[in-house]
């Protein structure tokens, strides 16, 4: 008769292998869902480029493109918002999949581009938006960032015409590094309102709202 402990060991191995296979299925299902969303954001970014290119080369009246740009922008913003949290949560609960770095890089590159094009849009089409760049720390434990993040959600709900673009200030992606360097961000959390006013350290809801009002945003 086979040794019961050997039998148990073999059975355990079998169960573990099966569970790992199932686990990788769950992980990759999550990844593919994210990939689909991020891919569409990237595609919309490219559509945006095509429109800008058209404007430079062929457009007689640039303002005729504004409705198209605005609709593209709206599509993207609806998605990116939920994507940011999803990437973070999935990354944490994920065990086997290693695709998150690639996904993150496309996400942050797309986000940087959206942040920059917000200002261009303001110039050419008079986009009514107050962009807020919110910098958090990715590579170090930052309790204040998490606290600030929770407050930012509340602030965005009070000021409908503001948009939050959340970047890790210590990111390894070049476009994000360029933006962080522009404002000289060296610690997190930090908020830059409308490319001008920089707030560093954990900020209360009221002080951020007051700064937003100064910058001309409509808040309740």
């Amino acid at each position, binding site marked *: 008769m086979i040794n019961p402990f050997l039998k148990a060991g073999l*059975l355990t191995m079998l169960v573990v292998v099966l569970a790992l296979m199932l686990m990788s299925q769950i992980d990759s299902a999550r990844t593919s869902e994210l990939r689909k969303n991020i891919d569409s954001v990237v595609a919309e970014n490219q559509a945006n480029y095509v429109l800008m290119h058209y404007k430079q080369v062929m457009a007689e009246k640039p303002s005729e493109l504004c409705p198209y740009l605005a609709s593209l922008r709206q599509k993207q913003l609806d998605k990116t918002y939920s994507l940011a949290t999803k990437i973070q949560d*999935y990354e944490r609960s994920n*065990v086997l999949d290693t695709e998150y770095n690639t996904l993150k890089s496309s996400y942050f590159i797309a986000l940087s581009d959206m942040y920059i094009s917000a200002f261009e849009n303001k110039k050419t089409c008079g986009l009514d938006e107050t962009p807020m760049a919110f910098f958090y720390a990715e590579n170090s434990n930052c*309790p204040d960032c998490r*606290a600030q993040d929770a407050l930012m959600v509340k602030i965005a709900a009070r000021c409908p015409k503001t948009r939050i673009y959340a970047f890790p200030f210590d990111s390894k992606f070049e476009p994000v590094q360029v933006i962080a360097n522009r404002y000289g961000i060296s610690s997190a959390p930090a908020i830059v309102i409308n490319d001008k006013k920089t707030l560093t350290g954990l900020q209360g809801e009221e002080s951020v709202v007051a700064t937003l009002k100064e910058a001309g945003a409509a808040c309740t």
Partner: protein
Amino acid sequence: MQLKHYDADSGQLEGAIAKKGFERSGVSIPARKGMAIAGLVILAVAVMAALLVSYQTIFLIYSIYTIFIFMAYLVLWTDGAWEEKEPKIEMKVWPHVTLIIPSFNSGHTIFKCVESCKKLEYSGTYDIMVIDDGSTDGSFEKLQGLEGIAVIRKEKNEGKSAALNSGIVRAKGEIVACIDSDTYPTPKTLEKAVKYFAEDPKVGASVLFINTTHPNNFIQAVQEIEYWISFGFFFKTVASIDGLYVTPGPMALYRKKMFEELGGFDEKNLTEDMEIALRMQRHGWKIRTCHSAVVHTEVPSTIPSLYRQRLRWFRGGIMNMLKYIDMLLNPKYGNFGLFVLPTTLGAGFFAALFMLWSIFNYGRALMNYVSPWIGKPDVAADALMLAPKIDPFLLDSAMLFGFISLVMWGYFVYKSFHISHAKMEKRHILPLLGMLYLYPIFTGLTFLSAYVHEFSARKYKW
């Protein structure tokens, strides 16, 4: 007759036979201090290592370890542990049995205990001996009035082991049954359990199926199920590979010859029932289990008393594990050394480690949540309204492994109910959930506390 004195510190027995026994097994009792320091160092290194890897990795390793242990139990169970192997022996002569009941201020339970001992249905003869360990609650005087029992008074309170030893010395029976004063055997107990001694002269003890009395509150209801599982399923399975590491204190039957050879109970031990079982294992005596002999015992009804009881068990476990450390992972002792000791007494070490690490992790998470608001009144007012975000649908992939061991545990529970002939009822649902979610936390914390107590060599208060 005089019992050989068993010296707890040196692990030495008086007399030639005993010494020979010890030499045969090559015992060397390690110095406790050295072992304690080694244990602490291992614990510290393990915690440091654990902090370097992610939550999932630790959870995964711990889960796989659990799955292996459960799987081993499952295989042993299906391989034959499930059978009730009653010895098929025609008993020509039933040995005389002496029931020894140590009693210390147990006026509220001892009479019921004596009563149920008198009602035992046994084909042979038996006598009841109550050893009063210097009671001051008047139970001794009342006991003297009872018929059919011998009451022996010790003026000085010396603890349960000493009381039992003084009873064993006087016992007339070939078989000695040690019964706690808060334990009530069912009538068939002796008849069923004594048969096991006739099977093999090397059977030194016969262990019974310990159940709780009918539970009065939630804490006892949890223990009711816990006793079914641990003394039911797990004991039955461990016994099938001759691996019992404890002869439960509430009631167990011993062969008197075993005590004559190995000495009496260790009077300096917190869990003398575990110590004698380990000593029997080391010297090749067998321990049998009899699940048709049911014994009911009183269990703690409050968390503090449960904590004190478990602290004593776990400290005793650590103490005895260190004392018999040479048996751990020693192939000479077969399945007992290689599987039973590491997965039962040794598992406490992992439980404490996992607990320590969890406390650290949850503490850090809590600090991360709280620290930003400290000293910032304007922000804190807002923050209090923001609860930490938890998505119940976002399951950790590693949880899958926890789920597998949960399913296996469910099967063990089902089998335990089967062994104890208990029907699963509505009243069992909450205690089962309590056992699933609160018990690991309670046990882990108590184990941790036991380690701290034992390593700081704090004196035990009974």
